[in-house]
C-alpha cells in the first residue's frame, strides 16, 4: 500500500509538484517569519549582552514602564555618584548620559532607515565596547567620536565638522575619533555618537544629572552582592540591577515589543497561505480519488480492507506533507536570507546574528505542513474507502455520496454560525489582544470553510453569468468553457475557494484602508484650521525651541504644538497617551468635534487637573465626562484628573488632552518636546510663508514643513506604502491559488482526454481548445474573485460599522474592487497557460484510444 502511494505520486508528477507548492509556500512564510524575528531577538540580545560586559551593576532612575526601548525616561541626580562610591566593594564607577538625535551633514539629516541615532557620553574603557580605529575619545567640548559605519557611509574623516541635533538644538561638532563597537562598524544599524559628559549633560537637559551609573565590583565581590549593597545605600526611587539582569530585561523588552508585533503582523499572512494550500490539497485529493475510483474498487475486490485504502491515500498525503514542509523550511530560511541582504542593500541592517533555526520553528513548520496535508486529505481519503468493490465492474460508476455531502448545507450553516459567533466574540469579548485576534481569525477561517462548502450551489449560476459574454464573444468555445466550469460544481467551487480566501483578505485590507484613509485623513482635513504642519523625521520629537522659531517666522500669525507621552490609567491595562496643548492658541487652529454636548467653551476650563478625552479612549477606559481617574507617567509619578469633555479625533489627539502647564509638570523633561507643530499664516501666499518657516527652522534640520494638503497627501502615502507591503505578503496566497487552478485544470483535462480527442477530430482547432481551457480557468477565477470580494467587504463591514473599531468608517473603494476582479481574471489567464498548452498538445489518435 505504501508502494501504491508512492506510485500514485510519481505517476502524477505535475499534480504532486503543484500540491507540494501549495503547502511549501505557506510553510516557508511561517518559517521565514520565525527565522527573521528570532535572529532579530538574538541580534538584540547579543548587543545588550555585549554592552553589559565589564559592568557589574547598573543604576537608573526608576521608571514605571518604558516608553522606548533604548533608554530610561528619568534621570539621576549627580549626588548619587558619591553615595555609590562609598559602598564597600565598588571598584570603578562611571556616570553616563545619553539621548537620541540626528546627525546633520550639509544641512540635511542623515537618513537611517528608521534605526536610531544614539548619543552617549564617554565612559572609561572597561565599561564600553568601543575600540577606536582612528583618533581618540572626545575630551573637549564640541568634540565627538562616531561609529565606523557612519564615517564610511558619509566619507567622514577626523577633523570634519558635522551637525548633531539635540534637545538644545543643532550643535556643530568636530570628529576626533572613529570607532568600532565590539568589532563591528555599527550596532545593528544604529548610528552612535560619543560626546564628553559635560556636552551630553548640557545638550540633553541633564546638567547636574546622569542617565545611568555603571559600576564595576572590586575583585572577589559578586555582582549580585554588590547590587544588593548599593540598593540598600540608595534612595528607593532608583533602580539597581546587575548588568546581566539589565541586559536580559532590555532583550525581553525588545522581543516583547516590536519584534512580537512584527511576528503578529507576519504570521497571519503565513496562515492565510496555509489555508489556501489546504483548499488546494483537499481539491487535488478529491479529484484524484474520484479518478482512481476504479482502482480502489479493484483493490477492494482483491481483498484490500477499507483501512488499507484509507492508509494508502493518507500515506500519500503524509509523504507530500513531509517533503513539502521540509522544502518549505528550506525556502523559509532562503527568504530570511534574502530579506537580510535586502535590508543590508538599503543600508538598514537590523541587528542579526546569522540564521537562527530554533527547534520551535521546525516543529511548528512541520506540524503545520503535515497537519494541513493530513487534515485536508482526510475527507477525500474517507470517500475512497466508501467505494464498493463492485464499482470495479461498473461502467461510469460514481462515488457514493457521503454523510457530509448529504447534509452539507446544514453543516455549512452550522460552521458559518460558529464562525460568526467566534468572530463577534473575538471582537467584543474579553481577553488579551492576541487571544481576541486568534478568536477572530478562527471565525474568519470557519466562515471561509462554510462559504467554500456552499459555493458549489452558486457555481452554475455564476458560471452562466460570467460565461454569457464569453459565449457571446467566442461562441461555442465560450459556451463549452462555461459548461465545463459548471460540470463538477464542487470541484470548481473548491478551486475558486482557494482564490477566494486570498482575495477576501486583500479586499478586507483595501476596504479597511479606505475607511482608515477617509476617517483619518478626513478628520485632519476637517479639524485643522491652519495652513502648515511641522513634524520631525524618524518620529523623533522636534526640539521645543522650534515652536518659538515658527511662531516668529515672517508671515506666520501664530503656531501651536502637540506634545505626546505615554501614560497609564490606574486600574486599567494598556498604555494611553497624555497630550499637552495650549488651549487658547490651539483652539484658534483646531476645530474640535465635540461629543456629548461639549463646545469650545470647554477649552476655557482646560487647566489644572481638567482633561478632555477622545471618544475611543473614553470607550476603552470607561471614562466619560465627569469621571475622575488617576494617571501615571513613565517616571512613576501619579496624578488625579477629571474628565470635563469628550471629542472625536481618530488621527492626532488620540488620548487625554490637558493644558500644557499641567502636562509639563506631570511628565518628565525628556518628554516635553512636541511631536507636531501647526502654524497659521497671516494671509495668502503659502509658498512664501512655507519658505519663511523653513528658513526659521534652519537650526532644526530634522523638522519637515508641509502645507495642510501636503500633510494629508503624506499621510495617505504612508498608508498606501503600508498597504503595498500587505498586498505583497498576500500575493503569495494568490500565487498559491494559481497553482490550485492549474492543478484542477490539468486533472480535468486528463479526465477529458478522449473528449478532447473527439473535439479535435471533428474540427476544433488548437486555438479554440486553448480558448476553451482559458475561459474555463477565467470563469473559475472570477467565481473565486466574486466570492472573495463579497466576503472581504462583509468582513470589513462587520469590523468597521458593526463595532466601530477605532472610529474607522466603512467606505467601499469601488474602483479598487473592479481592479481586483480584473486581477482575478488575470489570475485565470495565467493559470490556464500550461493546462491550455497541454490540452492543445493532446494527440488525437492517442486520445481516441485512451481508456
Amino acid at each position: 500500500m505504501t508502494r501504491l502511494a508512492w506510485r500514485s505520486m510519481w505517476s502524477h508528477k505535475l499534480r504532486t509538484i503543484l500540491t507540494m507548492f501549495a503547502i511549501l509556500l505557506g510553510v516557508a512564510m511561517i518559517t521565514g517569519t520565525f527565522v527573521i524575528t528570532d535572529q532579530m531577538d538574538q541580534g538584540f540580545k547579543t548587543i545588550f549582552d555585549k554592552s553589559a560586559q565589564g559592568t557589574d551593576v547598573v543604576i537608573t532612575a526608576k521608571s514605571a514602564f518604558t516608553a522606548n526601548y533604548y533608554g530610561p525616561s528619568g534621570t539621576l541626580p549627580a549626588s548619587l555618584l558619591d553615595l555609590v562610591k562609598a559602598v564597600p566593594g565598588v571598584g570603578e564607577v562611571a556616570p553616563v548620559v545619553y539621548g537620541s538625535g540626528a546627525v546633520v551633514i550639509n544641512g540635511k539629516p542623515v537618513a537611517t532607515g528608521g534605526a536610531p541615532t544614539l548619543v552617549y557620553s564617554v565612559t572609561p574603557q572597561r565599561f564600553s565596547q568601543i575600540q577606536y580605529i582612528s583618533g581618540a575619545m572626545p575630551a573637549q567640548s564640541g568634540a565627538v567620536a562616531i561609529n565606523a559605519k557612519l564615517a564610511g557611509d558619509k566619507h567622514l574623516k577626523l577633523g570634519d565638522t558635522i551637525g548633531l541635533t539635540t534637545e538644545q538644538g543643532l550643535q556643530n561638532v568636530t570628529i576626533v575619533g572613529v570607532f568600532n563597537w565590539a568589532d563591528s562598524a555599527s550596532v545593528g544599524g544604529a548610528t552612535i555618537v560619543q560626546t564628553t559628559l559635560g556636552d551630553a549633560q548640557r545638550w540633553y537637559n541633564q546638567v547636574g544629572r546622569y542617565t545611568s551609573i555603571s559600576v564595576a565590583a572590586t575583585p572577589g565581590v559578586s555582582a549580585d552582592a554588590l547590587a544588593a549593597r548599593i540598593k540598600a545605600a540608595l534612595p528607593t526611587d532608583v533602580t539597581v540591577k546587575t548588568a546581566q539582569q539589565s541586559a536580559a530585561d532590555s532583550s525581553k523588552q525588545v522581543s516583547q515589543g516590536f519584534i512580537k508585533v512584527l511576528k503578529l503582523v507576519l504570521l497571519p499572512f503565513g496562515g492565510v497561505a496555509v489555508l489556501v494550500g489546504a483548499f488546494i490539497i483537499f481539491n487535488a485529493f478529491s479529484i484524484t480519488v474520484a479518478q482512481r475510483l476504479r482502482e480502489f474498487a479493484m483493490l477492494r475486490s482483491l481483498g484490500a480492507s477499507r483501512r488499507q485504502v484509507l492508509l494508502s491515500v493518507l500515506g500519500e498525503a503524509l509523504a507530500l506533507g513531509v517533503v513539502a514542509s521540509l522544502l518549505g523550511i528550506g525556502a523559509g530560511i532562503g527568504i530570511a536570507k534574502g530579506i537580510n541582504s535586502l535590508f543590508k542593500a538599503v543600508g538598514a541592517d537590523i541587528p542579526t546574528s546569522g540564521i537562527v533555526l530554533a527547534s520551535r520553528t521546525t516543529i511548528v513548520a512541520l506540524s503545520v505542513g503535515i497537519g494541513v496535508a493530513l487534515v485536508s486529505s482526510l475527507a477525500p481519503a474517507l470517500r475512497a474507502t466508501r467505494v464498493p468493490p463492485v464499482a470495479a465492474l461498473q461502467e461510469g460508476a460514481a462515488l457514493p455520496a457521503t454523510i457530509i455531502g448529504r447534509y452539507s448545507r446544514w453543516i455549512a450553516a452550522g460552521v458559518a454560525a460558529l464562525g460568526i459567533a467566534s468572530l463577534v466574540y473575538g471582537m467584543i469579548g474579553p481577553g488579551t489582544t492576541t487571544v481576541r485576534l486568534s478568536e477572530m481569525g478562527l471565525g474568519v477561517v470557519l466562515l471561509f470553510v462554510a462559504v467554500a462548502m456552499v459555493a458549489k450551489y452558486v457555481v452554475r449560476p455564476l458560471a452562466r453569468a460570467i460565461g454569457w459574454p464569453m459565449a457571446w464573444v467566442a461562441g461555442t468555445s465560450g459556451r463549452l468553457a462555461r459548461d465545463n466550469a459548471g460540470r463538477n460544481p464542487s470541484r470548481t467551487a473548491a478551486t475558486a475557494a482557494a482564490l477566494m480566501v486570498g482575495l477576501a483578505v486583500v479586499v478586507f485590507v483595501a476596504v479597511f484602508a479606505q475607511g482608515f484613509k477617509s476617517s483619518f485623513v478626513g478628520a485632519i482635513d476637517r479639524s485643522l484650521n491652519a495652513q502648515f504642519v511641522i513634524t520631525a523625521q524618524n518620529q523623533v520629537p522636534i526640539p521645543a525651541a522650534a515652536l518659538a522659531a515658527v511662531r516668529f517666522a515672517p508671515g506666520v500669525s501664530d503656531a501651536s504644538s502637540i506634545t505626546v507621552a505615554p501614560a497609564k490609567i490606574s486600574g486599567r491595562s494598556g498604555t494611553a497617551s497624555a497630550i499637552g496643548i495650549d488651549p487658547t492658541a490651539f483652539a484658534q487652529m483646531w476645530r474640535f468635534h465635540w461629543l456629548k454636548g461639549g463646545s469650545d467653551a470647554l477649552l476655557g476650563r482646560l487647566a489644572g487637573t481638567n482633561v478632555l478625552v477622545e471618544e475611543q479612549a473614553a470607550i476603552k477606559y470607561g471614562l466619560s465626562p465627569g469621571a475622575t481617574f488617576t494617571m501615571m507617567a513613565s517616571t512613576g509619578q501619579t496624578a488625579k484628573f477629571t474628565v470635563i469633555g469628550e471629542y472625536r479625533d481618530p488621527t492626532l489627539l488620540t488620548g487625554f488632552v490637558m493644558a500644557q502647564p499641567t502636562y509639563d509638570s506631570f511628565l518628565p523633561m525628556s518628554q516635553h518636546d512636541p511631536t507636531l507643530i501647526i502654524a497659521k499664516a497671516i494671509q495668502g501666499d503659502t509658498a512664501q510663508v512655507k519658505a519663511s518657516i523653513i528658513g526659521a527652522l534652519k537650526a532644526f534640520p530634522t523638522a519637515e514643513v508641509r502645507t495642510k494638503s501636503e500633510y494629508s497627501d503624506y499621510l495617505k502615502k504612508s498608508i498606501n506604502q503600508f498597504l503595498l507591503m500587505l498586498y505583497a505578503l498576500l500575493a503569495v496566497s494568490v500565487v498559491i491559488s494559481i497553482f490550485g487552478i492549474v492543478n484542477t485544470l490539468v486533472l480535468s483535462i486528463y479526465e477529458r482526454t478522449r473528449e478532447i480527442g473527439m473535439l479535435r477530430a471533428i474540427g476544433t482547432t488548437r486555438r479554440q481548445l486553448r480558448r476553451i481551457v482559458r475561459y474555463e480557468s477565467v470563469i473559475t477565477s472570477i467565481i473565486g474573485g466574486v466570492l472573495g470580494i463579497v466576503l472581504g467587504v462583509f468582513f470589513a463591514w462587520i469590523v468597521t460599522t458593526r463595532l466601530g473599531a477605532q472610529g474607522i468608517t466603512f467606505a467601499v473603494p469601488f474602483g479598487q474592487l473592479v481592479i481586483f476582479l480584473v486581477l482575478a481574471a488575470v489570475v485565470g489567464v495565467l493559470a490556464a497557460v500550461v493546462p491550455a498548452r497541454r490540452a492543445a498538445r493532446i494527440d488525437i489518435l492517442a486520445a481516441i484510444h485512451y481508456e
Partner: protein
Amino acid sequence: MTEITANCTLTPPPGTDAENAVVMARELSKRYGEGDTAVDALRGVDVDIMRGKLTAVMGPSGSGKSTMMHILAGLDRPTGGTVTVDGIEITALKERALTMLRREKIGFIFQTFNLLPMLSAAENVELPLAIAGRRAEGEWLRSLIDDVGLSDRTTHRPAELSGGQQQRVAIARALVTKPAVLFADEPTGNLDSKTGEEVLGLLRRSVSDYGQTIVMVTHDAHAAAIADRIVFLKDGEIVFDCGSMARDDIYDVIKSLESSR
C-alpha cells in the same frame, strides 16, 4: 476461394474513375518506430474511395485498418505517399488547414460514442457546426434527428441515453455537416446485435438516401455485408478489393486471411 474472389476483380484499379473518387491514396506507407523494432503498418497502399458508396475495410487484427483510416481522414500522417480528399492533397496541408478540412469535409463515428456529457442530444448533434461558427438549418437538423430516431430525445443528456441511442446521436453529429466522406471505426463494436443492426441500417440509409460516402472499418462480417465494396487488408497491404458480398463469403475470406499468416 476462387469463386468468392471472382467478385473482387470487378473493382476497377485505382485511378480509373478519378471523377467519382472522393478520397485517393497513393503509395501510402506508415512505419512506426525505427531500426529493428520498426513496424510497417502500411506498405504501399493505393486506394480510391468512391462517392456515394459504403466501403468496408476488413482484415485481421493488426493488419493496418485503423492506421489506414486515420491517415485517409487526416488524423494521422503517412510516412510516405499522398492522400487527396475532394481534390485537396491533405498530406501537404499544415496542421491548421488540416483541422479546417476535417471540419468541412470529414465526419467521424467512433467505437466509443464520445459525446459531450454536459450537452443535450441535439446540442451534441450540432456541435461540429457550432465549432465551425455556423448555425444548423432548422429543417435539416430536424429531419436528421428524425431520421436517426431521436426526435423525442433531443433534450436528454448522453447519460440518460442507451448505448444505441448515443451512437445514433454520434451518427447524426457526423452527418450534420454533410461531410464529403464519413469514417467509422467499428461503429457497432460496443453495441449488442440488435442495436448494432439499427445503427447499420441507419448508415446504409444515409448512403442510399442522401448519397453519403462512408468508409467503415469493421471486424464484423454481418456489418460488412451492407457495404457496396469491401477492402481486405493484411500486413499493411490490400489483398482483396471486392464488391458487395454475402456474409458467409466475407467470413470465408477473413478465415483464409487469418489462417495464412
